[in-house]
């Protein structure tokens, strides 16, 4: 069974604000949420450029009794899922619960609870752990809470491939719906890694910027860690049409690959294979693609390798592409990034506006394509790709088309 799959709902929590409207309005202005952020734990502290979720009051979304068991990454997933389901016209829930999947990405799961537990265990030398530690740190906690939120009982699992987790999750959800295991999926990802231990760990790997995130730009010096979640509702074209739902775009195909070379150093052939596979799965010609929402972390090596991979796959058409990294505005949210950036990609198609790469200072000799520097650009986006690459050399790409022809 092969069915067509469309996107009918969007939800987002980010450093640019709670909700898709704030997310998109800020990106249209090229506004970046990155700011010096103090993180402290166990009597230690440091300050990094980061992009924590802004204007978020947990008690506006959850009762005080619900919060002890919900680490921030799980909260973000539920809040984004609520918005996506309401946007899709599915809240209160309608449809067959057993035919609705929940497939979400996260890299680290409940990192806040884990850090607090480490302080208590090794710092305070208290052997007894908090009874809620396990369910709170579980990577699948976000999926569990979203399924409970809507009472869905279909295929439900978490995908944990670091920075590519949400894009891999959407790819799995797409395959589940396409091949008839479910008629609908709530999918995307979330992460809440703006905390001392995570920032120190990534800083030790020399991938964190001490200025800001300026992908593909000269003088770029690394990623900036952000937090948030992005969730979409996928369903079959048939069910969407039957209930008269607004269809944002069709998810045409996915591509996944591994570099099989290095844990931390991305290679050109892996991303190129994922892009080519997504285009083939979507039955797209390279000259049909208008926009690529890039992985674009702002590290020297990622942006060089990603640019080369795009140039290698698209040839002459690479110069006709608009390419941007919205991480320059909302930070790198690891397992949430692909969900938030998919929302950005779909809204770019919906509004006919390409969000920019903010903080761009000028061309770099290794990055010579059109990165939509600093200012959003009006452009009809009929076909777009969303790319995500992870440590381990694991890559995922989604291919989307705005218009949904009848045949």
């Amino acid at each position, binding site marked *: 069974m092969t069915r067509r799959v469309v996107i009918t709902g969007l939800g987002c929590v980010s450093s640019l604000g709670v909700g898709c409207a704030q997310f998109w309005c800020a990106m249209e202005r090229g506004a970046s949420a990155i700011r010096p952020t103090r993180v402290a734990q166990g009597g230690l502290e440091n300050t990094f450029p980061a992009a924590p979720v802004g204007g978020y009051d947990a008690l506006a979304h959850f009762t005080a*009794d619900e919060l002890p068991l919900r680490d921030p990454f799980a909260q973000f997933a539920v809040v984004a899922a609520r918005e996506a389901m309401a946007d899709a016209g599915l809240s209160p829930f309608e449809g067959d619960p057993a035919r609705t999947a929940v497939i979400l990405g996260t890299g680290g799961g409940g990192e806040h609870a884990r850090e607090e537990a480490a302080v208590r265990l090794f710092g305070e030398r208290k052997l*007894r752990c908090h*009874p809620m530690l396990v369910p709170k740190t579980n990577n699948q906690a976000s999926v569990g809470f979203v399924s409970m939120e809507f009472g869905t009982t279909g295929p439900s699992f978490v995908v944990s491939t670091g920075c590519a987790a949400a894009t891999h999750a959407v790819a799995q959800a797409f395959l589940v719906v396409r091949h008839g295991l479910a008629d609908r999926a709530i999918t995307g990802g979330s992460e809440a890694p703006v905390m001392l231990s995570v920032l120190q760990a990534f800083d030790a790997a020399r991938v964190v910027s001490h200025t800001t995130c300026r992908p593909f730009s000269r003088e770029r010096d690394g990623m900036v860690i952000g937090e948030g979640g992005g969730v979409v509702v996928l369903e079959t074209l048939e069910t969407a049409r039957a209930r008269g739902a607004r269809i944002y775009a069709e998810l045409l195909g996915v591509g996944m690959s591994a570099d099989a070379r290095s844990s931390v150093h991305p290679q050109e052939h892996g991303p190129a294979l994922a892009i080519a596979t997504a285009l083939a799965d979507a039955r797209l010609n390279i000259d049909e693609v208008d926009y690529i929402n890039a992985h674009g972390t702002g590290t020297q090596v990622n942006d060089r390798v990603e640019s080369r991979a795009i140039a290698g796959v698209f040839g002459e058409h690479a110069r006709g592409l608009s390419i941007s990294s919205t991480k320059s505005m909302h930070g790198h949210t690891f397992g949430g990034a692909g969900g938030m950036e998919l929302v950005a990609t779909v809204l770019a198609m919906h509004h006919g506006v390409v969000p920019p790469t903010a903080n761009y200072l000028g061309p770099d000799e290794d990055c010579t394509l059109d990165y939509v520097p600093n200012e959003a650009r009006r452009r009809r986006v009929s076909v777009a790709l969303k790319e995500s690459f992870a440590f381990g050399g694991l890559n995922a790409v989604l291919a989307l088309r705005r218009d949904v022809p009848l045949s």
Partner: protein
Amino acid sequence: MAPQPGHLEIEEQIYRAVRTVKPSLAVVPMSPETRFENLGLTSLDFITVVFEIEDAYGLSIVEQRLDTFRTVAEARDVVARLLAAMPGGNQHLAEEAG
């Protein structure tokens, strides 16, 4: 007979533990006769209440299989007994607990 100050302090600590785990109970009056099963706690909540009490006093209630109490007063007596049994424990509390 009115409870001794030691008992009151332990009861207050138990109320605090319950309200840490389930903040909405801040508006629910509790007394020594309050039964935990009537507070709408899940099994995980109840285990966490025990953990919070243990943490406050540096006790180990679970290991002694004493987490079977049903009321605040029963919990209080268990805590008092364990405190008294600690090195340098307060025999006064133990006597109160009977």
